[in-house]
């Protein structure tokens, strides 16, 4: 490895497998997009196809770059010209996969909950349980957090701004 020129190359083995899956996911998305594009008339799909095929080439290069081959190393060197911008902000540690999946599951659960029972039920429920189970806070603190967030949301959006926040799938 050439001494940390590319932060993507310093990552550990499980991380690298993750990066590979992510790159594969992007590749699949692009293929799917190109497939969908052929449903449209030539002038309507012109631009999308240009983007789609460009994306496909780039994704292929990215996948090769992830392999530990001579070609992969060349690609990494060519594309890592100057160093700047958003990069370098990568987490300095590799968290456990299970922790990451749990964090994402909480978000997905929250949104599914909002879909089913709406905001006004889900807001206190989520804040309380998230603080209780993830944060291991006392019941009193969790209740305090849940109530204050709910009151804020209600006062700000429903009371002052006259929004009717989504009430869930059964209220429709």
């Amino acid at each position, binding site marked *: 490895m050439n001494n940390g020129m590319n932060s993507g190359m310093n990552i550990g083995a499980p991380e690298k497998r993750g990066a590979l899956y992510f790159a594969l996911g992007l590749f699949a998305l692009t293929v799917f997009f190109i497939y969908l594009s052929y449903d449209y008339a030539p002038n309507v799909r012109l631009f999308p196809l240009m983007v789609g095929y460009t994306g496909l080439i780039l994704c292929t290069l990215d996948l090769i770059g992830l392999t530990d081959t001579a070609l992969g190393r060349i690609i990494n060197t060519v594309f890592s010209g100057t160093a700047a911008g958003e990069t370098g902000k990568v987490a300095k540690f590799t968290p456990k996969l299970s922790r990451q999946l749990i964090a994402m599951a909480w978000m997905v659960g929250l949104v599914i909950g909002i879909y089913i029972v709406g905001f006004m039920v889900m807001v206190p429920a989520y804040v309380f349980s998230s603080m209780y189970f993830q944060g291991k806070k006392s019941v009193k603190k969790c209740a305090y957090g849940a109530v204050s967030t709910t009151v804020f949301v209600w006062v700000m959006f*429903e*009371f*002052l701004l*006259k929004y*009717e926040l989504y009430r869930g799938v059964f209220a429709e």
Partner: protein
Amino acid sequence: MLARFGLGAIALAIATTFAIPGAVAKYPEKTITFIIPYKPGGGFDTYVRALAPILEKRLGVTVVPKNMPGAGGRKGATYLYKSKPDGYRISIMNLPGKAIAAIQGKKGVGYDIRKFTWLGQIASDSYVIAVAGKSKIKSIADLKKLGRTIKTAGTGKGATSYVVSQIAGNILGLKLKLVTGYKGSSGMSIAVIRGDTDIGFFAYRSYSKFAKSGDLRAIAALDEKGAIKLGKPGLSKLRIHRLVAAPPGLPADIKKTLEDALFASINDAGFKKWAKKARRPLAALKGKESEKLIDELVAFYTGHKDKFK
């Protein structure tokens, strides 16, 4: 001042809580959503926002304008079409823009223009054909003398300006090429002023502002007088209509309540005063007349359907 609305909301909340479920509901008893199928800030938006507080007074419940842009106004129309016909969702609609699917006989657009419950018309305006202020073209005859395809500006295929230009071009025997994708009538105006296109079709009101500054100049008016002058009286049927619709199958009693409140609101002295000051034309029609108008117009547009491929 915000509190005033808050109090209203509380009162409303209490009112809804105490309404006995199952009992015969008296219409209206909760907030009515007035859908605007376009972004905030445009012509449709201002009409609805100016009208909403007056309608609110007549109906005694809150009327909330809600912008629902997307697919050139099709998203809002489809949303309304699929809504429950309970009188709590109404929308402003434009013709001929919303009739395009009916003209093309296309299926799967999401709504059928003839099946909405029509509550009335707010406004209607005639069209003009305009060129840039400094253009040499003075008349339709000058345009024809150019002996080439004439470029015209439009917002999109499916918009009112598209329908108007296709039909007017057909009647006048002009070979038109539509450059689409401009944002609203102001975007079209700039396109003509800048010289992107030769001409543009504008509703009289949006044209008049640019005429005053000398940026645009009309070469033909498509109102009744202008159409006769051009020897094609049919052209005067090409107007922009701003109507109000409810979902199909709205019960007759609710329809009557809404229709009457809407008609009275448009004729309200305060609303009329606003329209005059802001130079917005008004043309109040009741539901029945609107339905008749729509049937007539759709038949007229459909007569030119081979221009909409």
